[in-house]
């Protein structure tokens, strides 16, 4: 079923929007094959630098490239201002929610969020109950996935507050564009993103424990070079000028974390970890994990080291809590949410269940704890039999399901050897929280579904990326 959707470059009449005029001219003026040859050049450069990601279980593709699309995606200054305000508001609320959930639990007592959604959540960490973290910051780095469906509305598709990745692509894509299309870039007055790594380091240092020296020792903790995002870990360590450590490089003595160096042990104050909660400390979590550091949680609880993002933050970013985000924002900030949530019916609520059962053929029904499209019904694409089968599941265990309308994501022009065509996109901006507040660099990672008509932008399933340009001009005024 083909749905009409909003194209970010072209209006319904086929004319380019003012914001995209130069891009449209550039595409039109580029001789056939030029865009494609630039794309090939980009691929060669990426491969040479080693910007790859690993695909687990696929031996031949152990190091694959994420395809890079040469046509940038643009936002006007007005669009970005709205997005930025919404992102800051949302991340503030996420931090307050986590402080509350692991603290006084006001929001649960007020009945705004049902307690069982928190306590039965597999990402809830009882070890963190009653614990405070420096400056009450839990999600130091958040990746908020945004989609748009028309000229005005942005929707949050997902909050990522555990170990969101992709920021190296935001930064490398920019370098690539400046190299491959310098004239086009210069004509657009694009807001810079290169200060992201400086902001990140400042943010991380700002939440160091009080015991730390004036220049806190910060490290990035990686699971190692076979992790799918290893390139990014090493990229960030390099840009931040901090050590990239593995669990085996660290040890804990008397609740203090040290790294093993050529000059002996060196004390660590802040760990930007790219290792999941369950692997951090074999004494507390998975006992057979070799990725973590025995005793790390002890040092953490003793307040001798800051872990970013904080342990237990995952409770705020699952599909069930997501549906409460507008209420969470209202509860803590007494403000209306600036970014929309995708309308969601929680099947645990009888009225919602009734609506969902009546409209199964129009909706997407997802399992709360499912991921990667498993246990999902896409109504418009499903057969009658499949719908009836799902109806039974829903009636049996409504708590396990939520339902959403099928969104028609916006499209952006994308380059292929055969020519340029519209493809669906999303956006992941990166939001930093530190002692001095919440910040977003103007930009983000635009992911594009390269298959025609596909809505799947995941890099493991054939998604690509684009550079994202925030311009000085407004989209609306022209």
């Amino acid at each position, binding site marked *: 079923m083909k749905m009409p959707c909003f194209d970010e470059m072209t209006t319904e009449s086929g004319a380019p929007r003012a914001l995209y005029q130069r891009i449209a001219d550039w595409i039109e003026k580029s001789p056939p094959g030029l865009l494609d040859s630039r794309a090939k050049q980009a691929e060669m450069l990426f491969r040479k*630098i080693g910007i790859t990601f690993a695909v687990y279980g696929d031996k031949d593709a152990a190091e694959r490239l994420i395809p890079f699309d040469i046509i940038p995606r643009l936002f006007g200054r007005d669009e970005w201002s709205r997005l930025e305000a919404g992102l800051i508001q949302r991340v503030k609320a996420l931090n307050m929610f986590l402080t509350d959930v692991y603290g006084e639990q006001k929001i649960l007592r007020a009945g705004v969020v049902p307690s069982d959604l928190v306590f039965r959540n597999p990402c809830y960490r009882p070890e963190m109950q009653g614990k405070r973290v420096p400056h009450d910051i839990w999600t130091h780095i958040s990746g908020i996935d945004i989609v748009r469906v028309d000229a005005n509305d942005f929707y949050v598709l997902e909050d990522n507050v555990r170990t969101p990745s992709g920021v190296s692509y935001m930064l490398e894509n920019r370098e690539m564009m400046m190299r491959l299309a310098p004239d086009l870039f210069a004509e657009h007055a694009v807001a810079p993103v290169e200060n992201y790594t400086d902001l990140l380091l400042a943010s991380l240092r700002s939440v160091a424990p009080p015991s730390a020296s004036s220049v806190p020792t910060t490290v990035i903790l990686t699971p190692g070079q076979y992790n799918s995002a290893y390139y990014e870990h090493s990229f960030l*360590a390099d840009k931040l000028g901090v050590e990239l450590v593995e669990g085996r*490089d660290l040890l804990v003595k008397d609740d203090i974390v040290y*790294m*093993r160096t*050529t000059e002996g042990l060196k004390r660590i104050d802040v760990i930007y970890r790219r290792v999941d909660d369950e692997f951090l400390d074999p004494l507390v979590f998975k006992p057979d994990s070799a990725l973590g550091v025995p005793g790390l949680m002890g040092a953490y609880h003793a307040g001798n080291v800051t872990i970013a993002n904080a342990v237990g933050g995952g409770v705020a970013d699952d599909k069930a809590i997501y549906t409460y985000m507008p209420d969470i924002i209202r509860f803590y900030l007494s403000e209306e949410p600036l970014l929309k949530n995708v309308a969601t019916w929680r099947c645990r609520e009888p009225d919602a269940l009734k609506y969902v059962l009546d409209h199964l053929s129009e909706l997407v029904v997802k399992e709360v704890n499912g991921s990667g499209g498993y246990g999902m019904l896409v109504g418009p694409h499903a057969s009658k039999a499949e719908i009836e089968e799902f109806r039974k599941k829903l009636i049996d265990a409504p708590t396990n399901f939520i339902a959403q309308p099928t969104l028609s994501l916006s499209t952006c022009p994308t380059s292929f050897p055969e020519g340029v065509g519209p493809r669906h996109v999303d956006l992941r901006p990166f939001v930093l929280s530190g002692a001095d507040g919440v910040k977003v660099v103007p930009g983000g990672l635009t992911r594009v579904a390269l298959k025609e008509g596909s809505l799947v932008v995941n890099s493991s399933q054939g998604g690509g990326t684009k550079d994202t340009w925030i311009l000085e001009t407004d989209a609306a005024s022209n």
Partner: protein
Amino acid sequence: MLSRTADNLYWVSRYLERADFLARLIEASSRISALPKAYSADHDEWESVLIASGADETFYDHFDAATEANVIAYLAFDPRNASSIRNCIEFGRTNARAVRTALTTEMWESINSAWLELKKFEAAHQALGRVDREELSKFLDFVKATSLLFDGSAYRTMLRDDAYYFSRLGVYVERADNTARLLDVKYHVLLPEQESVGGSLDYYQWTAILRSVSALTAYHWVYRESIKPWNVADLLILRQEMPRSLLSCYDNIVRFLDAIGGRYGRLGPAQRHARTVKNRLENSSIKDVFQHGLHEFVEAFVTDNNQLGSEIAEQYLIS
């Protein structure tokens, strides 16, 4: 710096230095084995290549005879040989990737490109099953170029800090080991009394040795006479100006170990040991060496060099 980082840097250098040595060794030996029988005496060339490369212990698990084709396949391309050239490039690249942040872009790109090139080469030859001489020679040139590029990148682009010192240390510890191993398997053709017996036949062995350490031209500049075995031994052991000589390697080892010690404000067993070895080399003449017995001298050196490797590891790389 992290001990693991220092360890990886040290080993990346060692792997690339080893790959370079293997490439030269194969080239030089191919020249000898292409000679008519009358010129090559009765040396079992490929067997000694196996010993010099340290691959003799595992080789016979996979092959029956040390033929040219078998030895080259095993030393250059075989993934089952831990020290094959292809493994040196792959392990070097794996080590490099583990410490990307400690390498400069140029160093990383040189080794990553080499690895990509290797993958391409392997894919192209998988179907053929055999690499002909022309392809082999291209491959060996590529290996030498890789080593040169990586080494040059390190020299030109690295900060002169402990990362650089450890990376240099790897080069010289490995290089000393390679030169010593080569001397060890060839010592019999370098003994002075051999000249009167086999004389001219060994000439090709001597030039092969010099070629393996890229010193054939250097020889002529240093000695300005025809090739004499004691001069070859002198050049490879005691000549400070010869970059692959044992003394030159230890000159550098002492220098970089001292730089590390100076930076960390502490000297240890590795520094003391390296200085002892260097002093012994400095205070020897080639006459002394032959009197003491070339074979014994080289054997003792290999043991000393291995011990230094362990001391460096203990002092800095595992903590």
